């Protein structure tokens, strides 16, 4: 058996005249948790549904656990029920006419498991999400969080080696979302299934994933480990999406063995290393900016427009030569709105992206 649990090659999905997914290719290794991250309409959910067999792609190949599930060229298109997957839906899709037990047992019954095996698997699934006490409760008498857990138990109970998840936490409130996120990560680690996880929440994607695939307009924008995506976005889109608020068009020049990014307003930022491709923007995170009321050797002058209280941190909006620069730091008393401040960014924190 190959090391890849899910292989997607050149997948295209058309919705009428619009191309929802354009040539998507990726492979998820066995036991890997991969997130598809992107704004709404980027094609991530469509891709997931195409892997599940709920959408018919117009081109490409899908291989699940070494078995071809879809191949446009060869005319193969397995029905969803023959792909051996599990899936957690955004709406949870808990069947209201069944009990919790029946919901979780459905997939096992549909696949003609033996009675005692069903009971054991359902118990294992419900125990994994902490709901074994509610097995006989009608599904309509569950809270949102409980429904979410039942959906997860249902996916786990089937023993599928691949579980697809379509924004499973987006309907929960913030506290519960954090809790479920941690639980799911632990569960996936313990049970070792492969997960393809769709989300539009960058924090969720970064916290959960072994690997993140950022999508935009039906195409893959960047793939990488969460730290790579977070610290070194390769394009302006990814940088925006993972919360790098300072993105400025620039020119890169060599200055005595070092590379320097020159912004439109003439500000010069030291870079470390050598630009790889044809970069057009320099970026840095607000947290990387250091502020001071007094000038020093490296710092540049700016006007502090506004200081906003964010709870743990303060956010400062600076204006320098027509550009807005965002900075974040612990609250400090020596910076006044309207006053001149001095800011600097260490070369390590600056990176280049394509537009």
């Amino acid at each position, binding site marked *: 058996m190959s090391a890849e649990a899910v292989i997607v090659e050149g997948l295209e999905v058309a*919705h009428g005249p619009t191309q929802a997914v354009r040539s998507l290719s990726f492979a998820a290794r066995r036991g890997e948790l991969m997130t598809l991250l992107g704004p709404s309409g980027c094609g991530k959910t469509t891709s997931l*549904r195409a892997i*599940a*067999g*709920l959408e*018919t792609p117009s081109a490409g190949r899908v291989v699940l656990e070494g078995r071809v599930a879809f191949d*446009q060229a060869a*005319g*193969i*298109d*397995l*029905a*969803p*029920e*023959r*792909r*051996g*997957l*599990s*899936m957690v*839906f*955004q*709406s*949870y*899709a808990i*069947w*209201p*006419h*069944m009990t919790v037990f029946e919901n979780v047992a*459905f*997939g096992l019954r*549909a*696949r003609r498991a033996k009675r005692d095996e069903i009971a054991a698997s359902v118990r294992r699934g419900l125990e994994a999400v902490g709901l074994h006490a509610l097995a006989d409760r*009608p*599904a*309509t*008498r569950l809270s949102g969080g409980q429904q979410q857990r039942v*959906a997860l138990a*249902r996916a786990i109970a*089937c023993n599928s080696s691949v579980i*697809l998840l379509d924004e499973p936490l987006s309907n929960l409130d913030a506290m519960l979302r954090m809790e479920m996120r941690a639980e799911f990560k632990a569960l996936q680690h313990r049970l070792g299934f492969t997960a393809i996880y769709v989300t539009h929440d960058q924090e969720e994607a970064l916290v959960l994933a072994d690997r993140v695939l950022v999508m935009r307009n039906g195409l893959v924008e960047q793939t990488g480990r969460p730290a790579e995506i977070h610290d070194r976005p390769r394009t302006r889109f990814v940088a925006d999406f993972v919360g790098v608020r300072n993105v400025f068009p620039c020119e890169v020049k060599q200055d005595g063995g070092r590379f320097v990014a020159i912004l439109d307003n003439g500000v010069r930022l030291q870079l470390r290393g050598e630009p790889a491709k044809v970069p057009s923007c320099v970026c840095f995170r607000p947290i990387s900016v250091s502020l001071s009321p007094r000038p020093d050797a490296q710092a540049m002058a700016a006007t502090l427009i506004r200081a906003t209280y964010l709870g743990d941190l303060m956010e400062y909006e600076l204006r320098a030569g027509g550009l807005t620069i965002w900075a974040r730091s612990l609250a400090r008393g020596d910076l006044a709105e309207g006053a001149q401040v001095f800011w600097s960014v260490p070369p390590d924190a600056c990176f280049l992206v394509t537009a």
Partner: protein
Amino acid sequence: MTAGDVLRGSAEKRWTSWSSLRAERWLGAGAGIVVALLVLPPLLAAMTASVGAEFAPLHRPDIVLNTLLLGVTTTMLAVAGGTGLALALVPGVPAKAMLERLIVMPLYLTPLLTAIGWSWLASPRSGLVNLLLRNALGPDFAINVISASGVIVVSTLAVMPLPFLLVSDALAGIDASLVEAARVHGAGPRTVLRRIVLPLLAPAALASALLVFVQAVGLFSVPAVLGMPADFNVATTEIFRLLESYPPRVGEAASWGLLLLAITALLTFGQSLLLGRRSFATISGKGFRPSTKPPRGRRSRATLAWFYVILATVLPLLALLWAASVSFVAGDLRLTRFSTLHFDNVLFAYPKTWIAARNSTLLGVLTATIVCLLGLVVSWIILRTRQAGRGLIDQLSMVPLSVPAMVFALGLLWVYVRLPLPIYGTLSILLIAYVTHYLPFGVRAASAALRQLHPELEEAARIAGATWFGTMRRITLPLLRQTMIASWALLFIMAMQEVSSSILLYSSSSIVLSVAVFDLWENGNPSDVAALGFVQLAASFVVVGLALRARHQPSFS
């Protein structure tokens, strides 16, 4: 690229999509073929059957005018009345829920019985109302329902529930904030009604107007009972007369069918031009809130609704009951004696009662079941798949809405007399006619129910390993059970009461109750007719009662 390449390319493409083992694709194609086979042959036959025969309407302009008069006036009165009733029954009106149910009662009664009831009430010499009024107002007083205006009024009473239902739905969908915004910006209740509410209801009213018109010009029983004795003939009664004559003048009858078809097709086209792409976009998903403010004039609103209920349902049914249970009808009400004579006659003496009851029940059960299932499959294909041609299936399945039932029956007759299939004169041809005629209802009802069901509930079952059929059986059908049983019951009643196509397609062995009623009306004892009408109503309501009990059994909360 040559033409051959193009053909080969498309053939290959078709092969790849067909080779995949997806039950729903086969099913989609199958449903499309079934719908096309049901709808197209009779429709094409109805269009071509008159070729070669004389175009009869040319010689009877009076009947053409009568038909148009009936269609136009009934439509205007029924849409105005139905809209009025819908506007009257706002929340806060006393007994609103009961009134809403009573107003739609005529849907469950065949217009044949309403017409017969009214002929008992207001025929010029012996009508009950006339007998009573004459006692009070002098011997010359008479309301005459056996007349053109009688046909129009009774037809209006019979079809009014349709616009009432459609406009009520649209009204319930108007966000209260639209009205409130107008009030805040200075519009009084009348201005709000004229400038906000009525324009928002216009698409629904217009859509119902077309349905009502098709119903009105296709209505056979009311003009047959109240019009023909007064020499007020319309296209449907003329079709019936031509087919009853010996030898049957099928070609001429078909030319009347063609005329009806042309009129309704023209109006359907006109409606689509008028409505264009405008939809009923009154519901604004977020923050939708129906109006809660108590209305003014609650008592008079309720009175208006009761007035309709009494005219359309209570009085005709009481008249039937009275006629069925008096031993004979005398000019002087004091001579009235009650007896079960007429019920004895129709239950034990009249030979057609039991065979007709058996046939009607069988047809009702089969029609309701087939239409519910076919409707579910068709609407599932339309709503849940991206299958090519599903738009066409959708439109095709709606065609019977704009074709009078009698015209379809005429087409069926033409097709199956010529085909070497042993269907003509059997229950099968009636079943085909009923299924085709009520198909749009089944599709609409199932679509409405399916839209309420999140697709992920079905998709989750597929992912979990259930086949398409397994998903339908264990997820979709159980979840739609309540609405499916409700529409099954309504379909059963409508099939039990069908007259217009049955009257052309029945034979002595495939007679149904409504035809037996009409038969008795034409040839027999009018009091027996009332008794048989009651037997028909009782039979339908017993079955529906059973079905609705199944619906109320607790399944899930």
